[in-house]
């Protein structure tokens, strides 16, 4: 079963996966996590990956974000095959193109909210920025409703606020794509909807492609597309016309 190819402007897609396969070698033998996955994602799209546990959502996110390499197939971002880049090149590539939000990735405990937001710039210099990075960080934090928490430590934050810090950190680098693995898993309904609506706003206003995995249909239905996976293969690639839909 192949994935739907979106070719918005009849030009090279922003991201393209061609016949991707991923197998893992375990003590019990080889396990196929993904098979025959072909998919395109355009800038400004909000894509939800949905499926039961073990369906390959996280593996697919990792391959899209170049955190893992496919066993077979190609991953092409803006015309460049990223699955064959060296580890060193990938570090630079990821810095420029991707931001990640993990379900488990808590902020660093020794840094406050602002320092956690600016964390990437401990490792590389921001490019093409006119304004002050610190001011921009404060603006992003405020826009996420954490204006009163700028200098607070992570231990003083709630689960929803911690996830907003992760979003702030993802935004500060001006990525072309945000990849989020179960970003709403441990949040209450208000915070879940806040996170996903923020993604939606970002994808539309800043033309960022956002791909996230979720079990939650209410959350998934607020995306532009829902890619359904089961046992490592596509079940359905669904375009959502109503946004947000009533569940």
């Amino acid at each position, binding site marked *: 079963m192949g994935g739907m190819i979106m070719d918005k402007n009849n030009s090279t897609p922003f991201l393209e996966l061609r016949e991707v396969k991923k197998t893992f070698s375990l003590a019990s033998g080889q396990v196929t996590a993904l098979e025959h996955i072909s998919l395109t994602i355009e800038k400004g799209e909000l894509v939800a990956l949905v499926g039961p546990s073990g369906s390959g959502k996280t593996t697919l996110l990792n391959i899209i974000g170049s955190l893992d390499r496919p066993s077979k197939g190609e991953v092409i971002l803006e015309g460049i095959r990223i699955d064959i880049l060296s580890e060193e090149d990938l570090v630079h590539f990821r810095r420029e193109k991707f931001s990640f939000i*993990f379900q488990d*990735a808590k902020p660093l405990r*020794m840094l406050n909210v602002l320092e956690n937001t600016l964390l990437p710039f401990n490792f590389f210099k921001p490019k093409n920025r006119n304004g002050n990075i610190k001011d921009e960080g404060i603006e992003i934090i405020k826009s996420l409703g954490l204006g009163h928490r700028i200098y607070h430590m992570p231990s003083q934050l709630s689960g929803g606020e911690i996830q907003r810090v992760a979003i702030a950190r993802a935004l500060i680098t001006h990525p072309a794509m945000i990849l989020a693995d179960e970003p709403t898993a441990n949040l209450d309904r208000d915070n879940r909807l806040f996170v996903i609506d923020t993604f939606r706003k970002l994808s539309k206003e800043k033309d960022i492609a956002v791909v996230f995995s979720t079990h939650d249909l209410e959350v998934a239905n607020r995306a532009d597309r829902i890619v359904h996976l089961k046992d490592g293969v596509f079940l359905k690639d669904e375009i959502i016309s109503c946004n947000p839909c009533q569940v």
Partner: protein
Amino acid sequence: MELIVLAMKDILRRKGKSLYLLIAIVIPVAILSTILLTFDNADSSLSDLASKFGFTLIVQPKNVRVDRINQIGVNTQEYIPEGVIGEIEKIIREVIRNPKEKVITVVRLYKEGNVLAGKSEVNSVVAGIDFKTELEAKPSWTITSGRWPMGDREAVLGGTYASTQRVSVSDTVTIGDSAFTVVGILQNYNSAEDYMVFAPFAEVQKLFDKAGVVSVINIQSASLDKDKKLLQAAVEDINKNVPNIMALSPQQFSTMKYTLLKKTLKFLVAIVAATIAVSIFSIFNIVTSVLYSRVKEIGLLKSVGASRSQLLIIFLSEYLTIGLIGGMIGYPLGLLMTYLLDSFLLKLGAGIRVNLFYVPVALLVGIFCSFIASFYPTYRLSRIKITESFRTQWEG
């Protein structure tokens, strides 16, 4: 610079684990510093003491443990009969073959007893000496206040003894039933003499019923001072011909103690090597455990753009800083241990001599231990994939 700041903030956050690491580094550094300082102090102080001692040859009762050069014959119940003094002088005359040369023989009788000094009675070492011949042999011997005794019932006190007992010139000290007027206070020489009461030799013999015996015989001869072979011959002849005594030169004393010290040091160096090995193993375990608990943090740092080399810089900076602090604490602790070791065990009388050369040595050892123990786990964890780091069950 940002990476180092991150590392320093992390040290402060993990105070408990950092403290464990610090202790694991401080212990070997302190032990190493102790050994280096002890060796150094002993090396310089033994030869220093021997040269300051002022005598060419010492004769003490046989089978008495040689401890401090200034304390030979003090802590013993063994004595030398006065009759052998003439015999010893005769042997020396025969060795130097110069009848005109002046040979000074100084005898001392040491006895421990209760002395009423100031308002309290205190157990003290009383040294019976002949002030005139002592000063002839040791003209550098100085009193800080008062004068040298001229009468039978006059005494001089060691500097420390006088200050601790709050006794000054013109006060009285009572030894047994006899009262002695303190006429002088000796300068402190950082030796056993600082704690003694000096009274005329004949009076001390009478007081303690030790007529006809002495504790130690010190001899000064210019010829023997100049010629080591002659000195050696004199020592051998005395030991061969005079029974129940042991003659030795101050230089021999130094050599004996030095040989003993070197044997002790070899043993201590083995302990240091073992301590460093145990320390490295402990640091390795602590670092491994800490890093595994930080796997998700490593994944996070990599996901926001940290390269492997940057992670190595962060983690190694943390551990090397702790190593450096360990070295900074270990050296003064080593100084303290040197003092305690000398005071209670080795009793070299060397005191503490702060050798600044050992400061960088201590710092380097701290850094070395830390680096050796932390490099492998740090290197290994820096290679972990982001995807693996979030799959791990370890919790930070």
